[in-house]
């Protein structure tokens, strides 16, 4: 076994060890559990960085052992440039959420279980991005769902958390089952479960079957992305979940749907088979973008405002991917990263505000800038970020998405609508900032001292957002390499 293979398995096995350790360490305090979780998750961040050198040689890092030989299923992992981008994004988001959890009241009891579930959640996403076998992909895909449902169910707020968790589970599971049907069909019809081999063989399937698979894949992954009208699980789940879980849900998990679309319908099937779906992906993207923004504009619950913002932002990503142009897809992938950073920041800000003001409706808030000056600066940068103000990252990704839209060969008005729709993002972002931070201070019993455990990660994410925006080149290079490795120049 080569050292690179060993390291690759470490991305999965070290968090697993952390989970086992925490489950056994029942008397661990919250800080102790957090330290174990952060160290375990830290490995999932450090290892891919170490493996960058290997990736630069031009070959993906892979590892494979037979798992269920009779069914042709193997435990195969592969780290390539595309999976690297998604992997690092979700690991960093989870790390930020773990640190942020230290300042949250939730998870005080049974914190070993809480942090092990957070690790499991991240493990599901890491495995999803690294899986090179359809069976393994689905196993990790479901692990991600189960961990998040349990986190909402046990640590969620409000009496209706069971109902919300059930709704979230059932709706996203329906999407998962559609993906499952596609994965099994692919394996049965092509005789292989390996994604690399599928990329060679899937195009030989009858065109009707290819389009059936593309349709099911798209619907299944769009459920995870919470694209309108498949988003109905998202607002409630994001509102009820504890803030760190909301951060991971919104900033990382939604992006897994985009990864699925990239790895399956786009990477496996020829452009001709995808062509009939282009217009529908773009239309769904535009609808989602505008609907999410309008709902965020109308919403009064601060957490739900940012939740609906996710529906809107996922619309941009789907629009970019749907354009099937190099710029659009690249923009979509970069938007995943930038959205993750901005969304993490905004939810962290919301968490601090809720903590200080003890009010959750926007009309009951105001003037928080007087109490929380540092948080206000972070919020301002986050709001500018989501509004796609240059030089912050989302400006770059949206630019590429819209360029992709114009070059897609489909009526220009779609892209124009999308562009105009982005104005609503600015509206809801400014409303969010103005109502909460500007004006007269209310309520009167607000406390002005945000917990440092909440503030430190928030500042760190803000700095990261600024750095990423000012220096997008490394990410751009990774994404370009990722797309060329996976798609082999098809787009």
């Amino acid at each position, binding site marked *: 076994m080569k050292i690179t293979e060993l390291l690759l398995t470490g991305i999965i096995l070290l968090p697993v060890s952390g989970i086992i350790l925490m489950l056994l360490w029942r008397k661990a305090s919250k800080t102790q559990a957090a330290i174990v979780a952060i160290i375990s998750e830290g490995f999932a961040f450090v290892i891919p960085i170490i493996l960058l050198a290997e990736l630069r040689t031009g070959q993906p890092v892979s590892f494979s052992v037979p798992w269920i030989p009779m069914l042709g299923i193997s435990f195969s992992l592969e780290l390539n440039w595309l999976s690297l981008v998604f992997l690092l994004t979700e690991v960093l988001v989870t790390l930020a959420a773990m640190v942020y959890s230290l300042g949250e009241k939730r998870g005080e009891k049974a914190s070993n279980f809480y942090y092990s579930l957070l690790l499991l959640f991240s493990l599901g996403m890491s495995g999803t991005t690294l899986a090179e076998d359809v069976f393994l992909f689905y196993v990790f895909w479901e692990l991600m769902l189960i961990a998040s449902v349990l986190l909402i169910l046990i640590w969620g707020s409000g009496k209706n958390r*069971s109902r919300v968790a059930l709704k979230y*589970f059932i709706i996203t599971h*329906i999407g998962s089952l559609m993906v499952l049907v596609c994965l099994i069909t692919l394996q049965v019809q092509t005789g292989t479960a390996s994604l690399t081999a599928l990329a060679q063989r899937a195009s030989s399937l009858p065109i009707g079957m290819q389009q059936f698979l593309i349709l099911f894949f798209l619907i299944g992954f769009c459920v995870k992305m919470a694209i309108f009208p498949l988003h109905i699980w998202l607002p409630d789940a994001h509102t009820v979940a504890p803030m760190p879980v909301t951060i991971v849900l919104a900033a990382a998990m939604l992006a897994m749907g985009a990864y699925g679309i990239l790895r399956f319908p786009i990477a496996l099937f020829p452009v001709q088979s995808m062509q009939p779906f282009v217009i529908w992906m773009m239309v769904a993207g535009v609808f989602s973008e505008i609907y999410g923004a309008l709902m965020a504009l109308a919403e009064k619950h601060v957490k739900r405002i940012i939740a609906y913002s996710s529906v809107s932002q996922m619309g941009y990503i789907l629009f970019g991917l749907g354009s099937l142009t190099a710029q659009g897809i690249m923009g979509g992938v970069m938007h995943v990263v930038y959205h993750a950073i901005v969304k993490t920041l905004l939810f962290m800000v919301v968490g601090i505000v809720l903590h200080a003001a003890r009010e959750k409706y926007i009309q009951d808030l105001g003037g928080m800038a007087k109490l929380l000056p540092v948080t206000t600066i972070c919020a301002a940068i986050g709001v500018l970020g989501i509004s796609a103000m240059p030089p912050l990252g989302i400006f770059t990704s949206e630019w590429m998405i819209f360029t992709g839209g114009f070059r897609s060969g489909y009526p220009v008005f779609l892209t124009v609508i999308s562009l105009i729709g982005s104005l609503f993002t600015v509206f809801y972002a400014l409303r969010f900032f103005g109502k909460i931070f500007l004006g007269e201070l209310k309520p009167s019993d607000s406390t002005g001292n945000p917990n440092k455990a909440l503030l430190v990660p928030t500042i760190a994410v803000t700095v990261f957002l600024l750095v990423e925006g000012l220096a997008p080149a490394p990410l751009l290079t990774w994404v370009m390499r990722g797309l060329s490795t996976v798609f082999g120049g098809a787009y």
Partner: protein
Amino acid sequence: MSGSFSVVLPIVILVGGAFGITSITMFLRLKNKAAAVLTLLILLSALAALTHVVGRAPDPSQSASAFYGVLSPDGILFKIDYLGVYLIFVAILVGIFVSVYSGESLSRDHRFVLYYPLILLTISGLLGLFFSTDLFNIFLWVELTTVSSSALIAFRYQHEAAVKAGFKYLIMSGLGGMIMMLGVYFTYRSSGSLALSVISDHTDLFTRIGAGCFLVGFWIKAGVFPLHTWVPDVYSKAPSAISGLLAGVMSKSMLFLAPAVCLRLGMSSSELGLFYILFACVNMLFGSIRLLKQDNLRRFLAYSSIAHTGYLMFALGIGFLYELEAAITAGLFLFVSGAVMKSLAFLAAGIYEYYLHSSDVEDLKGVYRRMSLPAVTGSIALAGLAGIPILAGFNGKWLVFSAVLEISDPTALLGLALFLLSSVISLGGYLPMLAVQFQPSNGDRSDNTDVPVRDRISIWMALPIAGLVALVVLLGVIPSPWLRVIDWIMNWVSLL
């Protein structure tokens, strides 16, 4: 008599063991735990004998050591049936867990003397059913399982509901037996023989009617909709361990036995497959819809069992209709995964009944704080039954889906769509049932305090539960060894 006595040795051990245990327990005034250990030893002996039989006669069609009895068409003959060996192996495995568990769960009952022999007789009845080669013997063994199972269901006779459940099962199974007897009549009238090997060469309309009668009879015992009426009462009122054995193994075995008989009586594979698929769809939907509204854990598991009967029938039906070995393999895997998951769920529910005297959902709120073992293990069972990776149920689902998508026929795809619909509907039941155990209680029990009083679960109950959890996880994570066993079994099974 000719052939090898070792063929009937497992039956002899089980039946002899049943009488032996009764005598020894009565004369030596053994306690419940000692009787449980004796049962465990007998079951292990039967398992060893079964393994020995299989090892000695790898090919039943070639080897003289594969049968025992009188070889003439009218003689009583037992023959190794590899499908039966597989199912009995699982039955004995579950029986072992049930026996150890009963070492504690029965400690408050005075009539344990009869309990363990009845378990042994029930399992021996199943073995006899599969090893029999003529209709009359099949009928006799069916009756043996009916009587012993009914007695087990009504074991806690001081509870009126248990007696009613036992009586209901007796009536329904008795009806099934009568219909089978009618099948025997039609078959004998036409072929003049009761030996399956003779009848299979002379099938006609009457033998086919006979096949239909046997199908209905076996389906009653399997609890197939609309003949399922006994299922909810029996599984919720019988001792919980017995419910696990019945729901996990005994009833599902009938779904394999029916084809073994009916196909030899002239029913075609496609007819059988179509019947199976049709009723499978009704079963899965009925079970999954009804389980949503249950307020008692064991009744919930009963309806879940009806849904799982549907899943198993669907896999087998696809296998018969399209003569697809992969679907039968999926069915055999579903059988073992269902057996361990269902037994685990019922044993966990039994712990609640033993310590809390209730398995009502209302009483289980926040029970995790008081008893973490059944809450966690029961949840693993429920998650497995819901088909969540990396547990046994998911692999079963994967195998069924793979088989169906291999043929891509509209009927099969429609069935698969209903399968998916049913599994989504049932999630609406599994998740709340799983969650309720971890939610804060609104009652006035000890869990209102910060440090709840924890019940110490007996090791007699904890061990079998741990064993079953290990199996549920192992079948999910490392299914290959078991799939190899199924593959080996499939070499000798001529269901298709």
